[in-house]
């Protein structure tokens, strides 16, 4: 169990959103601590992706707060959420299709590059150093995902499984504290899934980050996540250790239908 004295990296308090009177998510509370891998599960249409959109500033919550390291992020835009340290992937992969693989990763470094328009225009030392460092860092990330030899190919030419990996690599490039993965194994075969899980474990250990994972494949989540939170109709119906969740009657009811 996580140490209760520490501040959670990511915390939400009574987070909720309604679309035209319909409550998509309500009273959503979660605490994620550094180095944890937490699963967010629920049947189709339960509001999992909506939670992600709230956690990344794509939607503005109608109630409640998202806190990163205890700092509230109310009213901030998506790119400010990223700057604060929350990065994500998308359920339906969103890469920069016309750009090369390495450029996809480099684009995510943009916010941390300090040179200005004048440096870029004059190709100053500052510019060249920054670009060089970024290329090195990007290649390093690509190597973790075994994408280094594809660095110069257009991102859209990659096969599906590798596109997913590239998306994760791009998210990692934002230098985040919390990584949100939206159904990373969707559409993958068992071998690809196994490889991906290995990747996820590697990056967690290596970068010491917290990961929140959406999945609706229960068995997958049970195997890798330390804690699981289950939502249905936008409401948390259970949260706890995998084995507790597996035997929780409300979860079983939600998944099998009442």
């Amino acid at each position: 169990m996580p140490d209760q004295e520490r501040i959670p990296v990511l915390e939400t308090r009574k987070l909720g959103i309604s679309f035209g009177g319909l409550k998509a998510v309500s009273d959503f509370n979660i605490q994620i601590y550094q180095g944890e891998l937490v699963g967010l599960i629920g049947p189709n249409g339960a509001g999992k992706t909506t939670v992600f959109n709230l956690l990344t500033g794509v939607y503005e919550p109608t109630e409640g707060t998202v806190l990163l390291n205890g700092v509230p992020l109310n009213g901030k835009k998506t790119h400010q959420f990223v700057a604060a340290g929350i990065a994500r992937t998308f359920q339906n992969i969103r890469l920069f299709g016309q750009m090369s693989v390495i450029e996809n990763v480099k684009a995510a470094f943009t916010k941390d590059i300090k040179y200005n328009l004048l440096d870029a225009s004059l190709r100053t030392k500052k510019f060249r150093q920054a670009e060089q460092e970024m290329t090195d860092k990007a290649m390093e990330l690509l190597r973790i995902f075994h994408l280094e030899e594809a660095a110069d190919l257009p991102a859209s030419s990659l096969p599906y499984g590798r596109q997913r990996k590239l998306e994760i690599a791009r998210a990692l490039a934002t230098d985040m504290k919390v990584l949100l993965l939206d159904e990373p194994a969707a559409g993958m075969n068992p071998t690809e899934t196994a490889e991906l899980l290995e990747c996820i474990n590697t990056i967690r250990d290596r970068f010491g980050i917290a990961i929140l994972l959406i999945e609706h494949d229960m068995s997958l989540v049970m195997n890798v996540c330390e804690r699981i939170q289950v939502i249905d109709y936008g409401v948390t119906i259970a949260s706890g250790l995998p084995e507790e969740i597996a035997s929780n009657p409300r979860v079983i009811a939600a998944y099998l239908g009442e």
Partner: protein
Amino acid sequence: MSTFIQTVIVGLRLGSVYALIALGYTMVYGIIRLINFAHGDFIMVGGYTIIFTVPLALALGLPAWAAVLAAIAVCALVGMGTEIIAYRPVRKKGTNMSALITAIAMSLFLENLAQAIPAIGPNPKVADQMFTAGGFRIGSVTFEYTTVITIVISAVIMVVLYMFTQKTRLGRAMRCVSEDKAAATLMGINVNHTIILTFAIGSALAAVAALMYMAQYPRIYTTLGSDLGIKAFVSAVLGGIGIIPGAVLGGFVVGLFESFTTSYISSSLSDAVVFLILIVVLLLKPAGIMGKNVGEKV
């Protein structure tokens, strides 16, 4: 007071022409999400067709306005041709932006083609009298027949069109295609036919608008389409593009604004005012007065 009422009447007359044109923009936008820049030029096509067929109509013993039937046919053909030759191939493989650029190119093509045709040429042409001249008075306000006819015919067409999209099978098919093309195909709707039908109806409306316009201002020139089209387009966006009642509302709003600016401020400013309204509306309520803001699905 009578100036005020007169201004309102002029606004309604202008508005009903804009509304007719705006309907064409809105119907096409609703179904393929494309601003058909060439739509304005369909009015120009209709206008010239009317000019060239009026002698024919008179020779047949018909009233001059019967020439609109030929214009409707020609405009519908041009509209369908534009869709088949230019828009469909681009839609198949291009992005939204390339479709939009194609539409701009189509507009330029029609305008410049008209100028290159010797019988038309770059100089304006003057049309015959379309409807009986004269009017009647109620109190101190004059109602010209042309104005009354314009407003009444436009109103009838709008109601018929609305009934068509709501009550008939084809109308329902059109609404289905605009909601979701893939699902419409699964329901057995021929998407391409529906789109072509939309173009035909929208362009036919442009022909009627041409008649209404010429009844009031019997002068046709090749860039007429751009001038009228842009205001009608503003109307469509103002009301909420893709929404039929929205186009009508937008048309009247633009017509009234224009007529009031002309009679109370300055006629040279009326265009700028129309654009200013557009910019303000787009910035405050991008989906238009009757539209709903729909965010991109993540």
